[in-house]
């Protein structure tokens, strides 16, 4: 992909991002942030790629940590967002455990 193709994609993504995200109401800003945390976990793809051509112990360690960090973002981010949004959608609920 040429640099300018990439820049074109980037610029268009900025506009799409602003357009879509500015419509998210304040009420949902915290779940939005944890969801974007999860989407940010896409950097794990970078970890998968670099670990593929890693060929010394340091690179093994760096790549593996990068994958783990990305996986934390993806799994933790989507799961906690799901948990939070469940609180917004459920109406009659049985008392759950962490109520103080």
């Amino acid at each position, binding site marked *: *992909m040429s*640099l300018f193709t*990439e820049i074109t*994609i980037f610029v268009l*993504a*900025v506009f799409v*991002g*602003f357009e*879509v*995200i500015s*419509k*998210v*109401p*304040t*009420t*949902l800003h*915290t779940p*939005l*942030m*944890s*969801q*974007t*945390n*999860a*989407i*940010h976990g*896409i*950097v794990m*793809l*970078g970890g*998968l*790629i*670099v*670990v*593929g*051509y890693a060929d010394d112990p340091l690179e*093994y360690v*760096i*790549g*593996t*940590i*990068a*994958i*783990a*960090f*990305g*996986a*934390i973002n*993806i*799994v*933790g*981010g*989507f*799961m906690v967002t799901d*948990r939070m*949004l469940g*609180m*917004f*959608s459920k109406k009659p609920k049985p008392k759950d455990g962490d109520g*103080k």
Partner: protein
Amino acid sequence: MIEAVLKPGGDAATALYIVAFSLFIIGIKQGTHPTTAKRGNLVAAGGMAIAVVTTLLLDGIGNWGLIAIGLGVGAAIGVIASVRVQMTEMPQMVALYNGVGGGAVALIAWSEIRHGISLGEDIPLDTLIPVLFAGVVGSISFWGSNIAFAKLQDLIPTRPLAVPGQQVINVVLLLGIVAACVDIAANNGDPSQGLFIAILIAAAILGNMVVLPIGGADMPVVISLLNAFTGLSAAAAGFALDNVALIVAGTLVGSSGTILTMEMATAMNRSVANVLFAGFGGAPAGGGGGDGEERPHTAIGAQDAAIKLAYADTVTIVPGYGLAVAQAQHAIKEVADELEKRGVTVNYAIHPVAGRMPGHMNVLLAEADVPYEQLKEMEEINPEMPRTDVAVVVGANDVTNPAAKNDPDSPIAGMPIIEVSEAQQVIVIKRSLSPGFAGIDNDLFYEPNTSMLFADAKAAAGEIAAEIGEL
């Protein structure tokens, strides 16, 4: 083992990445309404699954044992953290996720540099420059977020910590980083790995130095800004790796963080630069309000408050940071339930910076089962205030201070506020008359229609609920 079936940068892989990022956008779009947001989150997660599987099928992916370890450890930590975290702790968790995201990008950048050097050829600048950018921003995000996490978790003091000449040091660090990056780019045939590591370290120090002086009240801005930074660093990694999914996903996150940063700064009537460099939030600003003459105010007990509330038609609850700290959201909901049983209309007025991160108060109240229809934004509730019988301020202070509107010389002049002083009566539940983060006295406390209930928010709300029940 799985045979590689897709060519990196090939049509099939790119097409699948396009599907993946489209699902991210659809997912976020469904996040614009509470009833569809949960589905939207699943849609985005589906996009992520496609992106990950596509990458695992690429030619050149190997070292499967390491991938399994990284995935297994990361996923386990993610699952445990997301199940255990309390809703009051969400700001810390998001700060931590920002941090690991930035850290991952910095590590990938380092690995890319090592790989480039080991190939022994000129590293093309359209790879090298994004790698440098990703390394710097990733490292700043990682360390800055860790400091933000430590502050939110009370591991280090939330008050601003500054060293003399901080601004100068920051500028020198930044210039040094830029100079080193230029040197690496100029020597792209044989860049120095030592210099790149030095850049990562300098960026790490810069991340620490920028966030340490920022006080607790400004955390919503800082978390949003670091969110934007991690997003941009991911987009940069996408440029370096020629990966369209990373570019689009990173840019979406960057846009989101940028929008939230601007909204938070607007809600505090300050510029982002002011938040970052003025170290104002949480500053004691001249000894606080403990000394000096005590101005006349009306103090009441829980029983009086209960009577005022029970015989009102409309009650608006204004929750603030103090409610989150006291974990009083469930107790407040009990008060609202008792009032609704008596036919009182109850609403909640949410200031944009209530809580410790954007939208935090809404999540806390949702956790306590407050229906989201009752959560009113500031612009929506202010015109209703004159028709409100009783406004109850719980753990909020500066965001209700009429001085922001009336006194052009006030440090918070121009800050948008919840106009509770327009309500017929005001009850403020607070431990004392002490000033809030802005360090200034709140004129609201001394107005004739304001009653002060000096107590812990949770205890007071519990008592009021019990009193109303007995009326």
